[in-house]
């Protein structure tokens, strides 16, 4: 056996094999968002679905991120045509009700859909505990780097994206994220942002 030739061939193949092996450890569907840890993009959107007391907002009201500074914001993108959104809907409403007395604000965002279809969907799903807003032209969705629906962003009291979840978010996971933010001291004062 020509050992020199074997060693040369192995040395040439090793980087290629290493690169392929590294690629095998990665999920091509999992795209890491650059937003967590950064300031959440500002938004100011009109309410089309009021939600239910005590979290209800009037239809036509504007919900702006700036006005919720000091609160934890759960920002959930959904659509009536989204099957996965059905999976998480009850969990989201449940967690919103559980945290209604705390400094937590839930906001639903209708993504590439029409308000009438959204309202019909909410009716069929048995209601929605929190208000939903309309994102015309998906500008807010693009600002949040949305890949699809459902996606949920948890924004801390200082306005930073603390967590992003792609796909239906389980109630326990969402509650744990909220609890950890409620327990954590404020990272930044609103004025320092």
């Amino acid at each position: 056996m020509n050992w020199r030739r074997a060693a040369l061939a192995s040395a040439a193949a090793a980087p290629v094999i290493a690169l392929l092996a590294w690629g095998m450890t990665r999920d091509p569907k999992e795209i890491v968002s650059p937003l967590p840890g950064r300031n959440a993009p500002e938004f100011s959107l009109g309410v089309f679905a009021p939600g239910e007391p005590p979290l209800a907002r009037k239809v036509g009201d504007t919900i702006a991120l700036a006005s919720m500074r000091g609160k934890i914001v759960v920002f959930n993108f959904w659509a009536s045509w989204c099957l996965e959104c059905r999976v998480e809907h009850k969990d989201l409403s449940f967690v919103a009700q559980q945290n209604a007395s705390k400094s937590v604000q839930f906001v639903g965002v209708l993504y590439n859909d029409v308000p009438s279809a959204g309202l019909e969907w909410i009716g069929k799903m048995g209601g929605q505990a929190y208000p939903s807003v309309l994102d015309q032209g998906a500008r807010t969705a693009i600002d949040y780097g949305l890949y699809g629906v459902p996606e949920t962003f948890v924004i801390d009291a200082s306005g930073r994206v603390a967590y992003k979840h792609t796909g239906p978010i389980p109630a326990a996971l969402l509650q744990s994220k909220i609890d950890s933010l409620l327990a954590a001291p404020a990272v930044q004062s609103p004025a320092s942002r």
Partner: protein
Amino acid sequence: MIALVTVVVAATLALASPQAVTPPAVSAIVVPTQRSTADSILEARTTEVAKGLRCPICQGLSIQDSPSEISQQMRALVKEQLRAGKSPDDVRAYFVSKYSEWILLAPEAKGFNLVAYLAPALLFLGGLGTIALVVRRWTAAGESTVAQGAVAADAGQSTQPD
């Protein structure tokens, strides 16, 4: 006869019309032309940027080529940002800041990304070198076989009894 009268009347009315004799205002000609040129430049720049941005819900399609709603909305945003005076690099940087570098169909040629650009060339050169080496060895082996054959033939001739 009636047709002739109609033509004469129509021609007279046309000449009498102030619109017919007054040349169009210069601005009426120049402004739309300038606007259409600016529009076509903006459209070309939008297309150039949109071709390099990945559709988030497609398989390997750019937002320029994808008919999906989100791609069209992203393309509209590209156009809006370019119209507002941002450079193509600024627009790309905006999308990278929202979606990470994944949104670029061609990764930036820096850092680890250089592997994607250099590996094909290195593999090509390596392959070329290997082929050259193998061909050289084959040729050398062929030549030595021929030479050995000739030597053997000579030796055979010399051992033949006269």
